[in-house]
């Protein structure tokens, strides 16, 4: 009987994978639901004997089985999009059934955990340190140092918290991993728990990811004995973007408003319920099992450039021909990603801007396509690697509107704890409206009041308005409590710098 493999990833389902799977089952095939290869423009992707067909619809079933389908892409593993990648964290993508313990064990699963548990905890921390692994959530903090801090912190109760509140637009690697390889995340958490001396872990997943929540809960049930004495629980977010910030996430798990905490104290010393806590992103923890394989740490350290070691699952999204998950060693240029791998825009129009690193990341101009993917290089260019999402825009994008959207998003999602973010975001959106409307703005009722000594009594010119915007961005960047207010200026400033013509002509 023909075995047909079709993904049950949420993205494949959204593209109609269930109907295709049903049609194959009706045609007498055995349908295996596997994780997604990450070639999203081909979803639903059908695999028969290693050969791929996509994007498939129920109508294509007969032709695919007859071998005459025009949607054939040849052997999937040899497809240039896959062959050019170096998959460590996503090594199982497309190859295994997400909730099959047999598939997991047959592909090297649990070897990292078994080896780690035979080692003293301090040696596990040393291996993570030696691998050069940095936090994949966005900040890029060395994972080994965080783990060592928690391991050495006094306290009988410690926690491992996985940040799966993947709210950035243009990112979906956490979701794909949780849905496609949930045991890898659990194994990484168990290794971390052993290394730092924690007995309990939480995975905080956003409520927008119902499929990931279901898969994780099922995986925890299946793997509980393997993970014991470590216990993991899924906690579901409630629609607050800011809960992706680690201290706000901890407050949310504790059952509080998701407001950001001032640091110090660091969560590593006083985190969840006041106890030492490792908070790592899904991709960070899922990279751990591979690193703990014999020789895994040195392999990881040998990849990448400068201080950005190992591989990064880059998420190619927005207006692109070939979007999806592309895991590769650090150092790849943005131009390669956008032009070669993604094949340019889906609309066929020229690329205007690329936002890297989510809603808080800078908009990069095609002139910057030579930038290698690397935390420090991006930081030097006033940009952000973030969680590795890249969103491509064609020339119909209005960058002034995108800058305004950045402020609007920050205003909608601000937790309200610090003033620069709570009020700055609202004022920023107003200011961009004023700048784009072109006419010089006269003083408003408050500014006309006699006690407002410093407020200008004459109208503000465009140059003065732009100066005010710069000033506001400075304030938000240096005085916000967390990255939401602190990084919102990145998309705004980059849009203004590269596309000033989209901000009105000042007449």
């Amino acid at each position, binding site marked *: 009987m023909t075995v047909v493999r079709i993904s049950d990833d949420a*993205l494949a*389902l959204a*593209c109609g994978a269930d109907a295709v799977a049903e049609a194959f089952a009706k045609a007498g095939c055995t349908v295996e639901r596997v994780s997604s290869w990450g070639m999203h423009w081909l979803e639903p992707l059908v695999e028969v004997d290693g050969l791929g067909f996509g994007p498939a619809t129920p109508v294509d079933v007969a032709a695919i089985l007859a071998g005459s389908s025009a949607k054939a892409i040849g052997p999937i593993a040899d497809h240039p999009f896959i062959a050019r990648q170096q998959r460590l964290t996503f090594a199982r993508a497309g190859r295994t059934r997400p909730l099959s313990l047999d598939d997991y064990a047959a592909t090297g699963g649990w070897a990292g955990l078994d080896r780690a548990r035979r080692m003293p905890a301090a040696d596990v921390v040393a291996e993570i340190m030696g691998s050069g692994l940095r936090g994949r959530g966005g900040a890029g903090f060395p994972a080994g140092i965080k783990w060592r801090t928690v391991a050495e912190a006094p306290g009988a109760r410690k926690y491992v918290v996985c940040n799966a509140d993947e709210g950035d*637009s*243009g990112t*979906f690697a956490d979701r794909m991993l949780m849905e496609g390889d949930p045991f890898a995340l659990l194994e990484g958490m168990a290794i971390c728990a052993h290394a730092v001396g924690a007995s309990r872990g939480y995975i905080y997943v956003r409520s927008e990811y119902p499929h990931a929540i279901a898969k994780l809960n099922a995986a925890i049930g299946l793997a509980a004995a393997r993970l014991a004495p470590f216990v993991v629980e899924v906690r579901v977010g409630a629609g607050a973007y800011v809960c992706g910030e680690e201290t706000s996430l901890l407050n949310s798990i504790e059952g509080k408003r998701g407001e950001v905490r001032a640091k110090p104290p660091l969560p590593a010393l006083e985190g969840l319920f006041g106890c030492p806590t490792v908070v790592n992103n899904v991709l960070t923890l899922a990279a751990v099992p591979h690193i703990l394989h014999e020789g895994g740490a040195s392999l990881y350290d040998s990849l990448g450039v400068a201080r950005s070691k190992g591989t990064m699952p880059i998420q190619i999204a*927005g207006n692109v021909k070939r979007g999806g998950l592309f895991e590769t060693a650090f150092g790849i240029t943005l131009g390669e990603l956008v032009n070669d791998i993604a094949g340019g825009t889906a609309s066929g129009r020229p690329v205007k801007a690329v936002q890297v690193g989510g809603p808080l990341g800078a908009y990069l101009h095609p002139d910057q396509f030579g930038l290698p993917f690397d935390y420090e290089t991006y930081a030097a260019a006033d940009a952000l690697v973030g969680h590795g999402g890249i969103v491509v825009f064609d020339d119909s994008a209005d960058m002034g509107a995108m800058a305004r959207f950045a402020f609007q998003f920050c205003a909608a999602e601000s937790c309200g704890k610090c003033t620069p973010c709570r009020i700055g975001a609202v004022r920023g959106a107003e200011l961009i409206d004023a700048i784009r409307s072109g006419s010089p703005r006269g003083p408003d009722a408050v500014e006309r009041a006699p006690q407002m000594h410093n407020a200008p009594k004459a109208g503000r010119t465009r140059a003065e308005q732009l100066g005010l915007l710069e000033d506001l961005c400075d304030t938000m960047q240096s005085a916000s409590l967390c990255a939401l207010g602190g990084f919102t200026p990145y998309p705004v400033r980059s849009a203004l710098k590269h596309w000033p013509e989209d901000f009105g002509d000042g007449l």
Partner: protein
Amino acid sequence: MTTGPRLDEILAAHAGRDGALLPILHDVQAAFGCVDAGAEAEVAKALNLSRAEVHGVVSFYHDFTPSPDPRPEVQICRAEACQARGVEALVLAAEAAAGSRVRLKTVYCLGLCSVGPSARVGDTLHARLDEAALVALVRGA
């Protein structure tokens, strides 16, 4: 009225759990379609919190609503990646199709950023929407 035996059951199911408030509120929202003042008071009592503390949490998160809205809901992603793929051009048609019968909710990111514009109805996801597909989705909700 959202108090009564059903709420007691929810509270009992989470008794003794660390940081139980959010899981409780999720269950209350799912069972009653809202977390109203009566439920807030009961939850506060069960967790030994003040009503203000519980209200503060309920009002903070987008997922909890103070009163029920029985209309079907269609969530449309309008974050950057879906904007880059043209969602904004579809919004007016979706709003017209929704009228007052369907609640349209803007969400920021369903994690389908390479195949947008995308939408969610219940736990079912839809991608690669054009105007006709989105309007059909809203009408069928």
